[in-house]
């Protein structure tokens, strides 16, 4: 679904230390008309978020330097990030022990592999709606 007046293009931050995974997401998001910035670790994700001011951040949980959970915690503390939609990417269930403390910080949870239909629909929904932190609406890949 390409951007339109009802589904505006988003600035999307992708943070994943797996180059192939990050690249796959980047390509898909750009094909769907969104602007993408890729970060390879948690520290880079924080810097990129401050510079890029994304609408949406897809954060892999297990990353070097800072986990996706810690990135989320610090992003939520920054001024002007109230509308930032945070999505946790995990290969395991979002109720796995390391993830649990960070759950309230995220708007959505998605698992790899990325179901393309669900992911595309999610981006369309995210582009026209704002979601409150802690909302666990149905997420793609679950």
């Amino acid at each position, binding site marked *: 679904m390409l951007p339109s007046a009802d589904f505006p293009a988003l600035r999307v931050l992708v943070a994943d230390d*797996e180059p*192939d*995974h990050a*690249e*796959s*997401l980047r*390509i*898909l998001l750009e*094909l*769907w008309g969104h602007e993408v910035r890729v970060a390879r670790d948690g520290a880079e994700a924080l810097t990129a978020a401050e510079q890029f001011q994304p609408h949406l951040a897809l954060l892999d949980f297990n990353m070097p330097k800072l986990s996706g959970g810690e990135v989320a915690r610090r992003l939520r503390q920054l001024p002007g990030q109230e509308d930032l939609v945070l999505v946790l990417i995990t290969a395991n269930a979002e109720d796995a022990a390391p993830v649990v403390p960070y759950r309230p910080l995220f708007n959505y949870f998605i698992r*790899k*592999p*990325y*179901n*393309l*239909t669900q992911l595309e629909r999610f981006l369309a929904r995210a582009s026209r709606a704002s979601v409150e932190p802690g909302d666990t609406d149905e997420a793609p*890949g679950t």
Partner: protein
Amino acid sequence: MGATLDLDELCSVLRACDVIELDDCTPAYLGDFLAERVAAAEPDLSVKLRMLDGERMDRLCECIKAAHAVVR
């Protein structure tokens, strides 16, 4: 008929799909996605993928789904 892939190229395509999951219908953007994924490492394959006609892209999509059913 359009371009065809050899086995090595098919393997490259399957590896490029490592982190995605396909549903029943072939996404209209699948060819572009695959072409972009392999472009840096295999530019000739990237060109071939952009030349695949609809029928071959559908078959490729089915092949990818079948492979995922085996390895996941």
